[in-house]
């Protein structure tokens, strides 16, 4: 069997196009994915135009809560990558050209309208968002991002307003100094102190004084007001965010998105390289008319199949490691987990190789086997990436059955588990892969019965 393996490696060596593709494809894929992962693409690019007068400030209360033009920009642009625009037309052009996903425009009357919220004639402040909806996926992304941004801005404002209101309330209850424009510092008595003063006056009044009853009413009011308004302080704090979210992970893992993306890239590469190589190599035996000659000797069809699987495993280890090395230049890979990574590659490689052998044995021609390999592998890979909850339960059950019959899903799980300690368990997918090797190996062996005909 090893001589057949050496023969196939020798043939590969003399097929520069195939070898070039086997090397160039994973390296290129790795670099593309690594580049995409290494750039901070979590912040969408948004054109930002601030038409608010630079000298204007929005004061919340006595000046402790102030928002000026720069603060507004900093707060909004901490969540997106702002690209400053000098005019509405420029912002609109950037959106139209696709340079940014949306444009956010703060109108010049924004702060005026924010101030009006505390007046008798409130006007709701409006920010303008320009979007390009030529792509429904992008449009949905823009809607989600901008909505989240505005909601967060509203929350910040609401928090600041409620904080200031709590300050006022505290001042009302306990008293203190309060600064007003033009009037300067004034001393606020506060309900607690008012109640104390009233009690002191009550003590000095004659017992039969007619003012005592009225005074005690006022005292009681001041006391009650101070006690109950105290209770309102935490309520004010809850206004800005009345409902909190407590997220709990009860299923699945908490693997990083980057590690998942790497696992997908690696598994896709593993799949295409291994399945195509083994399917084509087995079909080539028939096209060269060598199959009968090879298997009538001491190798046999089973030996030939084993050699093809070995070829697939050798190629998958080489190509996948090459891809991971290429990725290392751009993203972080925990090479301390190399033994597990190799195990995942071996399991996935063997399963994809057996799958490829079944295709090659069935198609019997190199071109037909390549076409069949693509036609079957690509949809299965897509199906394996469909998350639960995005389709009806019945459809998802069917998808899960289909996934279980092909190597992609368990290979992806094994690779995730190998790359990331927080990923799924690696051992169950490896057992699954072993079962797939046996099943497709049997199918390939059955297909070889009519191979020589």
């Amino acid at each position, binding site marked *: 069997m090893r*001589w*057949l393996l050496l*023969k196939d490696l*020798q*043939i590969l060596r*003399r*097929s520069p196009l195939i070898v070039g593709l086997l090397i160039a494809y994973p390296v290129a894929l790795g670099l593309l994915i690594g580049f995409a992962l290494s750039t901070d693409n979590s912040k969408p690019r948004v054109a930002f135009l601030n038409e608010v007068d630079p000298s204007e400030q929005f004061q919340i209360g006595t000046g402790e809560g102030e928002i000026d033009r720069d603060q507004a920009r900093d707060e909004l642009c901490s969540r997106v990558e702002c690209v400053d625009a000098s005019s509405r037309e420029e912002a609109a052009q950037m959106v139209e050209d696709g340079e940014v996903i949306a444009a956010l425009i703060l109108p010049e009357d924004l702060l005026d309208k924010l101030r009006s919220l505390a007046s008798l004639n409130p006007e709701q402040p409006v920010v303008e968002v320009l979007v390009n909806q030529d792509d429904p996926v992008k449009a949905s992304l823009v809607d989600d991002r901008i909505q989240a941004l505005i909601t967060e801005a509203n929350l910040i404002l609401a928090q600041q307003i409620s904080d200031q209101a709590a300050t006022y309330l505290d001042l009302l209850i306990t008293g203190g100094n309060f600064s007003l424009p033009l009037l300067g510092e004034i001393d606020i008595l506060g309900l607690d102190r008012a109640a104390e003063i009233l009690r002191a006056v009550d003590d000095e009044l004659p017992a039969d004084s007619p003012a005592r009853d009225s005074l005690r009413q006022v005292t009681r009011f001041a006391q009650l007001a101070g006690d109950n308004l105290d209770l309102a302080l935490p309520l004010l704090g809850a206004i800005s965010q009345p409902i909190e979210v407590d997220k709990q992970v009860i299923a699945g893992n908490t693997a990083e998105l980057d590690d998942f993306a790497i696992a997908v890239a690696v598994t896709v590469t593993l799949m295409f390289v291994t399945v195509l190589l083994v399917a084509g190599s087995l079909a080539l035996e028939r096209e*060269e*008319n*060598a*199959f*009968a*000659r*090879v298997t*009538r*000797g*001491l*190798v046999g069809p089973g030996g030939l199949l084993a050699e093809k699987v070995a070829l697939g495993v050798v190629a998958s280890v080489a190509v996948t490691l090459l891809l991971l090395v290429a990725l290392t230049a751009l993203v972080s890979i925990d090479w301390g987990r190399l033994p597990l990574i190799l195990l995942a590659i071996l399991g996935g490689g063997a399963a994809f190789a057996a799958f490829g052998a079944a295709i090659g044995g069935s198609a019997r021609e190199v071109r037909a086997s390549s076409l069949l390999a693509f036609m079957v592998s690509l949809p299965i890979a897509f199906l394996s990436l469909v998350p639960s909850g995005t389709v009806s339960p019945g459809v998802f059950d069917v998808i899960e059955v289909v996934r279980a019959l092909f190597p992609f899903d368990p290979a992806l799980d094994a690779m995730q588990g190998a790359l990331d300690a927080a990923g799924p368990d690696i051992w169950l997918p490896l057992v699954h892969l072993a079962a797939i090797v046996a099943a497709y190996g049997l199918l390939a062996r059955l297909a070889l019965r009519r191979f*020589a*005909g």
Partner: protein
Amino acid sequence: MADGAPVIEARELGKRFGEREALRGVSFGAAPGELLAVIGPNGAGKTTLLSILAGILEPDSGTVSVPGALGWVPQTAGLYRRLTVAENLRLFARLERVEDLDAAVERMIEQTGLGERRDDLVGTLSGGNQQRVNIAIGLLARPAVLLLDEPSTGLDPRQRERLWEFVLGLAGAGTTVIYSTHHLLEAERYGDRLLVLADGERVFEGTAEQLHAAVPAADARDFEAAFVSFLRERGH
């Protein structure tokens, strides 16, 4: 012509492909050093018979006994075109577990006359030269019985002459050669005996002279005419 007990013997061989009966009750034997030519019209079952003898196909009925090593040269060259002449010979010598690998490879290279092209990829050789390598692979293990499926296909007259010189030398050294051919002249000239198949049946086994004698003299202008007349008279 060689004498002696058969070195290869087939009894009541039958093979069906779906509804079509490719072979039906075919029996024969060949002695050591004998050249047995298998002839017949297209679809007669010649390649099926040789494939069964070579162990490529399993018969549906009947038995084959081959006490010694058996070499097989398929009709379509079974070679790896991206390997060189020497690499092909070395690979198949290893698969056949030939003793003294290097000597066997060198012997075959010499016998094929492809010494100067030993390091050329087989895919770059002419059809005739590829056939020479094809035959050489079948001879690597020095088999007691050699099966040749239309060996002169693709060879020019000079190459054909050289081939038959070589094959006759093998037979003279004791190798039993069973070959199929469409060239009736090859069958008549080189075959010690003929095995005629038609529609999967053995319709004749004997010498060329015996076949000649089995048809009317008027139809026996030459061997080809006698052969055609023979088949026609028997409804094939």
